[in-house]
């Protein structure tokens, strides 16, 4: 079975890893990829890392992107425009709480539209 993928974009690689750990305690199957920090692993975000994470997280059911502050959203938008994959959405929700809800919903086998509407119901 394949699922809607999740990408965690944070200024800090540790933050992204930590959030993934929290979700993985509960949800094992859903693809979760992280894009934390710059290419040099400094504080910041990287379009290249985000693109790579999107490619890895996508197994054909689309990808939801979660981000933290500042440049994270803009870089997510640029990466999204560059990938050429249709089924991607940037989600306006707190990084941890949003990704957690998305992982649970995706783990139930819901499609991207249904996971999205569950998120909007919770955070919209």
């Amino acid at each position, binding site marked *: 079975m394949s699922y809607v993928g999740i990408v965690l974009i944070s200024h800090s690689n540790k933050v992204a890893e930590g959030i993934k750990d929290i979700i993985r305690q509960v949800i094992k199957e859903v693809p979760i990829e992280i894009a934390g920090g710059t*290419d040099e692993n*400094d504080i*910041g975000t*990287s*379009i290249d890392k985000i693109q790579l994470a999107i490619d890895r997280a996508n197994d054909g059911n689309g990808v939801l992107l979660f981000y933290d502050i*500042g*440049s994270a959203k*803009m*870089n997510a938008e640029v990466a999204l425009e560059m990938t050429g994959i249709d089924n991607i959405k940037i989600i306006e929700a707190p990084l941890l709480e949003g990704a957690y809800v998305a992982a649970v919903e995706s783990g139930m086998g819901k499609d991207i539209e249904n996971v999205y509407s569950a998120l909007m119901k919770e955070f919209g």
Partner: protein
Amino acid sequence: MGLQVTEAVEWMKRINEKIHINKEYLTSLDQPIGDGDHGINMARGFQEVSNKITMENYENVAELLKDVAMTLMSKVGGASGPLFGTAFLKMSLVAKGSDTINHDNITRMLEEAVNGVKQRGKAVEGEKTLIDVWSPMVEYFKRVDRFKAGEIAGEAKKAMENTKDIMATKGRAAYFKEKSIGHIDPGAATSFYMFEALSEVIKAGEK
């Protein structure tokens, strides 16, 4: 007077030099109202730009500006990467098909750059961002009918200094609300160096 590939390369190298010389200053502007990494980020980005364009042989200015844009987007790290990257990308799109960048097409290039940055950053004039330098510069270029090297840097400097009195409502500085008043916006300062470098390149071409 127009800019061709050689002059555009020179423009980028001068921007790189200015940002390196003023790296500490730019960072000091970013410390009270931001995350204090503007100078470091921009210096890293423009060093990569300088390395990249030195290795390549460009046939036209559009190709050069596109490489500048892509390098800034992937190497800067902060919000300045996608913002300045978008500015140069839009300029590259307008420059496509022109061998020489003259006063008319640079005006259109800058106008598209501002539109792109506004869209990317979801910001407008008066929010204490780089737009507050770029947008007045578009207006300036529209007012005059040819390059006046002596004026460009001064106009940009004035616009940069005006950001001091603005309260930030976009970017990291917006978290500081009224405390952001009294500080020059770092992105505006970097933008000033870009226009100052442009005016120097134009001046050198007039001789």
